[in-house]
């Protein structure tokens, strides 16, 4: 019953917030912020259609005075090769990103379910430990992980993991997936745990009384209820991996390099072709945009999950 009183007490401030946020002033403010926020991207987009000379000598706003449109930046970017073609780099990006987004979600869900709904000793300490792992910066992992992949693990002469061959380090993807998974798991487990833990105990108990084991509860009850969180985390992780350059430059070499590496090469050693970055950026942004718009409705719900309950 304490929840009931809490609801009525929290209702009024909530409505006032709603009124403040939907006032004309707030709307105008939001529009101004949106315009200012979008302006650089818009300028970049416009620049990508301007001839190289114009880009290097004048700002994008002069486009309106001297409109000159060309697709040559896009043509040059698509023609660009840096060991591999742009298309191969895009395919590499997809090959890297999909498993690197799916693996942490699968592992994270299993771990989050166990941490939220299976009662075992030291559960809270384990959860806090995993949560705390988030503070380990990715940069700290690079050297130890490289050593692991090249040298393998052996305990007392027993080869637990022989390490990857040099050939697979420069052509394969497993090392990139594993690295991204390792760095993503703490946040994945934390976010998914919060969403799973928010399921009312009564729902879980009802399922158990009906005879469902942990497997059935997981697939039939927990998974459907956590879908928005899974989707929003999937977008986070997808964008993070797609935009990653650091892991890509350290753990790939040449044949398996993703589009971000290609973009960083695009302007040339002396930066003399930096105007191509305008077109390159928009080519690289297409896939993330598709993913974002496809999963957008889950994204908003996922961000709000739990915030408006009660």
């Amino acid at each position, binding site marked *: 019953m304490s929840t009931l009183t809490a609801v009525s007490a929290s209702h009024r401030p909530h409505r006032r917030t709603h009124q403040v946020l939907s006032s004309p002033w707030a709307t105008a403010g939001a529009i101004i912020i949106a315009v200012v926020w979008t302006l650089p991207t818009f300028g970049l987009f416009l620049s990508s259609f301007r001839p190289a000379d114009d880009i290097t000598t004048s700002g994008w706003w002069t486009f309106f005075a001297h409109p000159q449109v060309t697709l040559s930046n896009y043509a040059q970017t698509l023609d660009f090769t*840096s060991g591999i073609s742009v298309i191969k780099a895009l395919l590499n990006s997809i090959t890297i990103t999909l498993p690197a987004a799916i693996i942490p979600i699968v592992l994270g869900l299993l771990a989050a379910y166990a941490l939220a709904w299976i009662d075992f000793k030291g559960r809270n300490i384990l959860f806090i430990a995993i949560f705390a792992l988030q503070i380990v910066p990715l940069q700290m992992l690079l050297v130890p992980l490289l050593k692991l992949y090249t040298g393998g693990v052996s305990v007392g002469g027993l080869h637990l993991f022989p390490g990857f*061959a*040099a050939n697979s380090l420069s052509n394969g993807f497993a090392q990139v997936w594993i690295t991204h998974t390792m760095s993503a798991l703490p946040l994945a487990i934390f976010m998914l745990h919060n969403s799973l833990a928010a399921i009312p105990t009564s729902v879980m108990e009802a399922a158990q009384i009906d005879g469902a084991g942990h497997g059935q509860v997981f697939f039939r009850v927990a998974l459907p209820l956590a879908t928005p969180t899974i989707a929003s985390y999937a977008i986070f992780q997808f964008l993070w991996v797609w935009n990653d350059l650091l892991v890509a430059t350290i753990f790939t070499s040449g044949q398996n390099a993703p589009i971000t590496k290609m973009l960083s090469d695009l302007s040339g050693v002396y930066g003399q072709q930096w105007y191509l970055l305008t077109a390159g950026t928009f080519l690289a942004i297409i896939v993330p945009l598709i993913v974002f718009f496809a999963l957008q409705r889950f994204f908003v719900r996922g961000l709000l999950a739990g915030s408006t309950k009660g």
Partner: protein
Amino acid sequence: MAKNRLIYGASIAAALALALAGCASDQPSANNSGDSSSGAGNAAGATVTMYGTPIGDEAAQWEASWEAWGKANGITIQYTGDRDFTTNISTKIQGNSLPDIAVFAQPGLMKAAVDTGKVKPLDATTLSEVKKNFSEDWQSYGTVGSQQYAVPLDAAVKGYIWYSPAQFASWGVSVPKTWDEMMTLTQTIRDKTSKPVWCAGFNSGDSSGWPGTDQIAEYVLSASGGDTYDKWVSGDVKFTDQPIVDAYTALGKILLNPDYVNAGFGDVASINSTAFGDVAIPLASGECALTNQATFLQASFSTAKTAAGATPKVAPDGDIWAFMMPPVAGKATAMGSGDFAAAFSDRPEVQKVMAYLASADYANSLITVPNATFITANQGVDVSKEANPLLAGAITTLTDPQTTFRFGAGDAMPAVVQQAFWRGTVDWINGSDQATVLGQMQAAWVDA
């Protein structure tokens, strides 16, 4: 229900097993590849990995320089370029993820790599090629202790003053022979055009400022000679000492003078916001009369346009040409940079590649790559094969034993000092007091 639980458990276990199998299938043989070929001695069909700074078009041109040889000898050289080579190579060395050959642009960085003990000394064949083809100066850049570790690949000569022969003819002026003549020439052009004469661009991302520090170093080398220059690089001559102060003062008369800069871009401060390669644009269009930049500025003219809208012709009688920075005092000096290949592996195919890179054959192949602007310090090179007279002149300068050649001061200094040198020069352009800026640069030696 126990049955269901079993199914789920089994399916999860199966999924995990599959994932592990997926990882495992990436390793055909135990541990590092290449073990299989080392016993055979026959390098045919082998792959050698190479890692360096050039990317994009430059990487493609570089690959073209050894492609024919690789095909003929059955060795595939798999090159990976990385803009952040300088930082990432340290990570890769620490993590044991070593390329067969790494190409260093800074001798200092190469020496740091050698200190890890993972770089292999040159084998006898490669060593004899290096000794035969390179001057002692160039050999010394790849030497640590008494051991030769690196093969010099390509080179660049800095300190070219780019100008328009057509404009010079119409103004009735000629190429200056000394620094003082160049200052007089600058004033003459200023009087004729009433517009800024020089253009400069110091913007280069994380390493902004290097085009300025190069000019300072060129002046120091030319005015004070090789000995003072070496002492400056090693820290024995301070940034606050007279030779360096003189260089800033002399260059300040051009770079800090709103009458002389920044043609085609704006005021003095616009030097810092201009990308260094963009100076090619006003130079080609005729807005800018003079700019100081290395041989590689030539790459930027392919996208520039003359006032008439055509692609500028780079030739002694064309739209664009360059002369070496005139000497401040005494004999000719040249400052430049170079790339050095060092091997992390002593497999026979790697040694074969290293020996080829040191050979005169490779030097000739390098300078004849179409559209490229590579030059080399390899004395076995046949200069007549270089179609571009400017680059041919640069090669002659590099291989001439009479020229005092020095490596770019920043590249030879410790990284922290180099950064301070860059940053300080940017501040100096922004109007900071010269003495203060020089003091800050000198202070960076404490951290070196």
